[in-house]
């Protein structure tokens, strides 16, 4: 397999093209501009490609809605404040059951924040983000190769479940260059879309709407979405388990933080500390079950996030009071090294008397 050296942002753009994405609408914001730039170039080359640099994030996400209604595979990307602006549209996508892929290369926030790598948008991503009772699938790659693989998968998941699917990364993942391989051979066929708006030729006219004035009908939409969420939670949980076999302590981390944690665990293992890593790949649906299972053998969980403590709530929920949870966070775009993280791990390890 031929490998190419690419940044995460370019790789996500290229993976989208390979996955059959033919429409991109977005607005510039650092640290993800290379995605839009890649799409601008490639969508000019491929047949039926549509690229618009929208006048705002609002316009961009609503163009996504229109293109998705028309049946296209469509993507937008942005970063924290821009994703906030898109939330109304994401809520509409989910209410209207329109598939779309949305990339968030998170900034250190709140407010304008900065462009350094952070995981400040975990809550926003995993709790729906906008108004109303809905969820989005959230995929969190930790390498450039995984960004490629999960982008391809994001389109398939979005189409399969007719749901907005988020890829949650950060500036480190977006800017870092690594060798990547793109899937060759045929990708699975997208499901037949029998709901698109294409003009009522040879069939009755259709409408796609989310205004349901009758509470009983609105309730049914909410339950229908809830049943879909249950199906996704039952079938689409993804995680990586690393050196759990004999672990006495497990670090739980996602994305870039997990990558740092993995390097740290390699070091602490060399020192003889029995530490493992559990890395949620789907942040929603969250891998509750594996965490609960691991707690049968492991007493201590150290959650490491590049924020002040968001996923740690899901870890506690998953454990339901079973294991002990501690948290280490570095918000604001601070990136620690695996060596520094290994010191955090070993000090906790010894504090807990886990020898």
């Amino acid at each position, binding site marked *: 397999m031929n490998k190419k050296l690419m940044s995460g942002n370019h790789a996500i753009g290229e993976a989208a093209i390979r996955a059959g994405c033919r429409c991109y609408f977005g607005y510039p914001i650092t640290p993800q501009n290379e995605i839009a730039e890649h799409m601008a170039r490639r969508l000019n080359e491929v047949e039926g490609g549509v690229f618009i640099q929208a*006048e705002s994030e609002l*316009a961009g996400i*609503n163009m996504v809605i229109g293109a998705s*209604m028309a049946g296209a595979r469509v993507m937008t990307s942005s970063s924290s404040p821009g994703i906030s602006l898109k939330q109304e549209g994401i809520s509409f996508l989910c209410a209207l059951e329109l598939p779309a892929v949305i990339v968030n290369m998170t900034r250190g926030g709140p407010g304008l924040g900065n462009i350094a790598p952070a995981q400040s948008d975990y809550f926003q991503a995993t709790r729906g983000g906008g108004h109303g009772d809905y969820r989005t699938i959230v995929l969190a790659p930790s390498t450039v190769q995984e960004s490629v693989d999960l982008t391809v998968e994001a389109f398939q998941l979005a189409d399969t479940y007719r749901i907005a699917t988020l890829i949650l990364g950060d500036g480190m993942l977006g800017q870092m260059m690594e060798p990547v391989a793109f899937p060759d051979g045929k990708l699975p066929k997208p499901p037949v879309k029998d709901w698109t708006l294409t003009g009522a030729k040879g069939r009755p006219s259709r409408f796609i709407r989310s205004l349901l004035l009758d509470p009983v009908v609105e309730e049914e939409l909410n339950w229908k979405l809830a049943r879909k969420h249950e199906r996704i939670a039952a079938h689409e949980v993804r995680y990586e388990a690393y050196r759990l076999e004999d672990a006495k302590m497990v670090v739980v981390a996602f994305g870039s933080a997990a990558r740092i944690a993995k390097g740290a665990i390699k070091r602490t293992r060399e020192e003889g500390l029995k530490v493992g890593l559990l890395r949620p790949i789907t942040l929603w649906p969250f891998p509750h079950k594996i965490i609960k299972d691991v707690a049968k053998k492991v007493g201590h969980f150290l959650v490491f996030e590049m924020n002040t403590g968001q996923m740690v709530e899901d870890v506690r929920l998953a454990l339901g009071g079973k294991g002990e949870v501690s948290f280490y966070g570095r918000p604001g775009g601070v990136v620690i090294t695996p060596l520094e993280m290994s010191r955090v791990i070993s000090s906790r390890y010894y504090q807990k008397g886990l020898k």
Partner: protein
Amino acid sequence: MGFKKVFSRPHSLKDAPFHYCPGCGHSIIHRLVAEVIDEMGIQEKTIGVPPAGCAVLAYNYFDVDMGEAPHGRGAAVATGLKRVLPDRMVFTYQGDGDIAAIGTAETIHAANRGERITVLFINNGVYGMTGGQMAPTTILGQETTTTPGGREQVRDGFPLNLSEMLALTKGSAYIERTAVTNPKNIMRTKKAIEKAFRVQMEGLGFSLVEILSPCPTNLKLRPADAWKWVEEKMVEIFPLGVIKAAKKG
């Protein structure tokens, strides 16, 4: 011997009673749009985008594919549809609050890109569905629930002439303002809608018809008086006629 049918519901309207208030212009405009679609033979290739506002339920009436846009975002949703399906007829149906307040940016930029869509902009000078608040097109002195004593320039600003603004964009190809206040104006409105659709079909650019329409309920006037009010007061601020007609090529 038999009877000849000389008047009936257009094919492009469903057999459903309108929910609009007595004297409201929406029912007339819906019918005009449907007649144009029928006459142009484009029912099977037309996709409509209804707004948030009184016409949000337009998909219950138009017998063409319809996709709901969030409030103000009609032009952006229509852009997405049209770019994927460039040979379809894509129109938005938007009120004054939807298009000239919350959706101003989307509308101006769609026009400036020369997006091949048609916008039907129904201007009644008031937020109808939410109960009669000030609209961007409320005229000075007009009483609404949020302009007690009438719209006052220093406090509330001026009414916005969006169509004239849009005409300044290079991408706009056809912009006309009409009214549905009397039979003559109604026929002109129908012609304007047809013209705007043809401009889209010919790929000339962005087309828009602004239609002044009475809202007796929120003007707190009887229908006949509301229609008169539009003709006498609104037309003064929003003059009728073709605002822009770009030449081919």
